């Protein structure tokens, strides 16, 4: 699982996922995202174009980021999710919790 974090203009952070966000990879991804959580006052874009799979642990990573952003007045945008991941969000009732582009 590859995660690329890029600071952009206007207090925006772009997080790009590549691979499977499953239980083994979630812990490492969560650690990589700690600095993003700490400065979650702006916009965090989670680009899922190359994310092929998400498990419950992966959902928890997204939810932790969402919680940090909500506390700090920031927002999360989930971008380019494939149909399988979209249906995971729907089946668990999290679809309307994120701004999905």
């Amino acid at each position, binding site marked *: 699982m590859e995660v690329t974090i890029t600071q952009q203009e206007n207090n925006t952070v772009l997080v790009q996922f590549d691979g499977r966000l499953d239980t083994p990879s979630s812990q490492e991804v969560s650690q990589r995202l700690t600095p993003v959580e700490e400065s979650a006052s702006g916009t965090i874009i989670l680009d899922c174009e190359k994310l092929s799979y998400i*498990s*419950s642990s992966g*959902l*928890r990573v997204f*939810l932790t980021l969402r919680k940090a952003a909500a506390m700090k007045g920031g927002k999360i945008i989930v971008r380019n999710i494939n*149909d399988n991941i*979209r*249906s*995971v969000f*729907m*089946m*668990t*009732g*999290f*679809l*309307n*919790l994120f701004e*999905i582009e």
Partner: protein
Amino acid sequence: MTDWWKIIIFVYLTPIHMSSKTHLDQHCETIMREYRDNLSWFKESSRKVYGLLQENLDKAGLVTAALEYRVKSEESLTGKLELKGGKYHSLKDITDIIGLRVITFYIDDVDKVASAVERIFEVDWENSVDKRKALEIDSFGYLSLHYVCRIPDSEYRMEIQMRTVLQHAWANMNHDTGYKSGVEVPPRYLRNLSRLAGILELVDDEFSKIRSELTNYRRQVKALVASGNLKDVPLDGDTFRNYLDLNPFNSLNNRIASVNQAEIQEVSLMPYLALFKGLGCETLGDIADMIREYSEGAFQIATFQIGLTDLDIVSSSIGPQNLCLAYLLKQGSGKAGIKFMFDTLNGKSDSNDMIAEMIMEQAKDLPFMNQ
């Protein structure tokens, strides 16, 4: 809240320009010296009393339109002394070197602010004026409550004015056009100003009435929801929020979560208000009926969807989401109905088409659809 009041409260008085040549006698010059010597202390004290008042108003839950403070300028004090300097023995006799003004939205909040001021500061009742009581029963005009209070730990005093946004607007307009402007104003304009004061007094009362009626309505709704007479409670933002306090979807959520021993993540269910309304629910009773009739279908959808996965986390909106899905499927609303549902919850999007299509496909195998 619209911002019209901001326009009003920022219509500040144009300072009266004083003549650069002043003619103060020696007594008044002594008062001016005392003022200059203590100016930085007055500035520091004004900040402190402002902070103290703000803190106490916040504690009392009083929302104000504005809280302002100022230290009287040298020009303004000179003007005052020129006019009536002989009246004052020392600077301690001038009660408005520090001035604070609290502007409230509602007329009944003026008295609440006054109570807070009485609690925090020592009020000099002899010099405090309730201008609201000063007017004759058949006249309308300046309404404001002025307290003179001791500046804590000092012999100096300060003035605190308390009034509503509308009273403040009238006072400013009156100041600009009325007798203090220094221009002779024809009586008909003065009469118009008085007429305006009467109307604003009426409007202030109406605003307060609306607020207390709304408070009563909310109290009644709470009582109705608690008593279970849900058919009598119209569905709106307030009533839905009260209903959610009763956790009406908990039982369904727990049942769904038990499919995978999933953790339930609490989320706001307020976005469902628009959806329930869109589905034709007019009272809380209609939602309660839906829970009764479609919970089994909602559970079957969850079993079909997450039962075949190892997903062990769901949001607390899974219950209402599947309930609405079950209702729409059973009503034969088809793909368009389900797309409408997700468009309402998530905003219009083509991707909601894909979700709707997937659910329509799954629905063919759901037992409740064939009963």
